[in-house]
């Protein structure tokens, strides 16, 4: 039982919103539960779902890396809903639970991650736990691995998904469907 009742699918008539909900469900992030709660405020729902989907799998940063970051952020936010969801596209591209879990652990010493991936994982972790550590030197290091456009893409992705997870945590949600193993 969520604190805000999701709209029933048959009560959502806006075709653009229906399509965004379908795209989220196909990806697996977000599933229809969060989308149907957002649909209570339909104008906001369309803007937010579009941004969630676009920031997650569009752009030039590897979607699998973003998926690892997204789960790490959900754990930081204490949000079991987004923490329990998985991207079908990332899974199809070879991302497994072991690597996702490693991204939330001691990834600095993990040889499976490149220096660029470790920087991105630190960027997400420090953003909300130790933001004062993200200084000029930190960004200078990031520019050795990523273009400024990619750093903005990563920063905006991290900020937006963390913000939605902070909101989702308060709604009493859990993933709608059991995750495929």
């Amino acid at each position, binding site marked *: 039982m969520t*604190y*805000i*009742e999701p709209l029933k699918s048959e009560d959502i008539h806006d075709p653009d919103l229906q399509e965004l909900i379908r795209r989220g469900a196909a990806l697996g992030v977000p599933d229809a539960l969060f989308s149907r*709660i*957002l649909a*209570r*405020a339909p104008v*906001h*729902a369309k803007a*937010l779902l579009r941004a969630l989907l676009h920031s997650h799998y569009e752009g030039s940063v590897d979607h699998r890396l973003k998926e690892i970051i997204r789960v790490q952020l959900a754990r930081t936010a*204490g949000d079991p809903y987004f923490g329990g969801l998985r991207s079908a596209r990332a899974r199809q591209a070879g991302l497994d639970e072991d690597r996702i879990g490693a991204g939330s652990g001691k990834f600095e010493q993990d040889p499976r991650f490149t220096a660029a991936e470790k920087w991105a994982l630190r960027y997400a972790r420090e*953003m*909300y736990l130790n*933001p004062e550590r*993200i*200084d*000029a030197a930190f960004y200078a290091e990031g520019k050795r691995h990523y273009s400024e456009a990619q750093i903005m893409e990563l*920063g*905006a992705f*991290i*900020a*937006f*998904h*963390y*913000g*939605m*997870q*902070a*909101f*989702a*945590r*308060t*709604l*009493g949600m859990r993933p709608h469907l059991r995750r495929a193993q």
Partner: protein
Amino acid sequence: MALNPDKIDAAFYEELRRHYTDEEIVELGAFIGFNIGYHTFFGTLKFYPMFAPDGRLVSQEESARIYGAAPVSLAAPQLTK
């Protein structure tokens, strides 16, 4: 939501419903979440408003002096005394 998310429970939402519709609560929650996420990100980028409180266009160095150490937003409660 930002400092004590565990305090936002069913009773909290019941109280909200005495003042707002479900549509407005979702709108507020998403707006707050969005701002929690983005303000921290913006804070790491070290940029400041283009204009001083008196409307002058100022350099980033001057803006940092105006808004950085003692932001106007934090001083506001004292101004109302």
